[in-house]
């Protein structure tokens, strides 16, 4: 399906996408309806599922224990649709700050957080965050004190990682919905902290 009303010549790769898709449809391997439906589904996914998980963990200590023990099972418990996800949730504490990367490609908990941002997939992030996490976090405006240990997780295999940020002060008595509203994607990747704005 082309963008109606907009004519620009296809690039080589756009030409490949159209050609590949049409061949696969002709062969009955996929249908245009399925392609559009899956594309629309991914488009609709932002970080809200992840934020919901975090808000529940902040308010329910037993759920948090289950989440840290088996991230996928905890998501399923909340009724979240996260096919093929093997989730490990790592908890930020006053002693430890976690940050996620995939140096080899760009593995990311897509079903929970949506498509990853360009910077997460960029060469500079993949090169530097394993070696100088503090400097990279500072570029994001996040300063981790020297006495806090930084733990970098390189997603090299089948697990996908999400950071459980610390619940900020000033959120006492907030309900889950309000709490979920302050949990950003960047906080769940570990380049930012959750803030009670």
């Amino acid at each position, binding site marked *: 399906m082309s963008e109606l009303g907009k004519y620009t010549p296809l690039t080589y790769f756009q030409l490949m996408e159209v050609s590949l898709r049409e061949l696969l449809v002709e062969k009955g391997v996929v249908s245009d309806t399925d392609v559009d439906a899956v594309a629309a589904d991914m488009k609709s996914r932002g970080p809200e599922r992840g934020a919901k998980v975090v808000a529940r963990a902040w308010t329910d200590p037993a759920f948090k224990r289950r989440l840290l023990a088996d991230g996928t099972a905890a998501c399923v418990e909340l009724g979240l649709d996260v096919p093929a996800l093997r989730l490990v949730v790592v908890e930020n504490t006053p002693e430890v700050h976690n940050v996620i990367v995939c140096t*080899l490609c760009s593995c990311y908990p897509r079903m929970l957080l949506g498509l990853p941002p360009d910077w997460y997939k960029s060469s500079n992030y993949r090169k530097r965050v394993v070696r100088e996490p503090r400097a990279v976090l500072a570029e994001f405006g996040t300063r981790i004190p020297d006495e806090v240990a930084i*733990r*970098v997780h*390189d997603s090299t*295999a089948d697990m996908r990682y999400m950071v459980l940020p610390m619940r900020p002060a000033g959120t006492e008595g907030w309900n889950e919905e309000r709490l979920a509203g302050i949990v950003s994607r960047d906080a769940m990747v570990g380049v930012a902290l959750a803030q009670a704005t």
Partner: protein
Amino acid sequence: MVEVKFRPGDRVKVMKAYPLGHIRTPYYIRGCTGVVERVCGAFPNPEELAQMRSGLPAQPLYRVRFVQSDVWPDYRGGRDDTLDVEIFQHWLDKAAG
């Protein structure tokens, strides 16, 4: 069933090898020594899956924790800073000490 050789707390050393093919053990971690943080389970071998083979029998996969200053000679962060990487059993040997 492939025998699960290591347990959480075991010190393991990553094979210092640089084979061709599709490899999921990052270059920077080869030859380094870390501690098994958890046994992730057993998974088909990605090195084989990439070649359109089954990758079976499933191989044990470990989350191994490395101290950053053991990985980078010029590491300037905290001495408790760590790097967690998932590594398949066939890349690991028991480390001395």
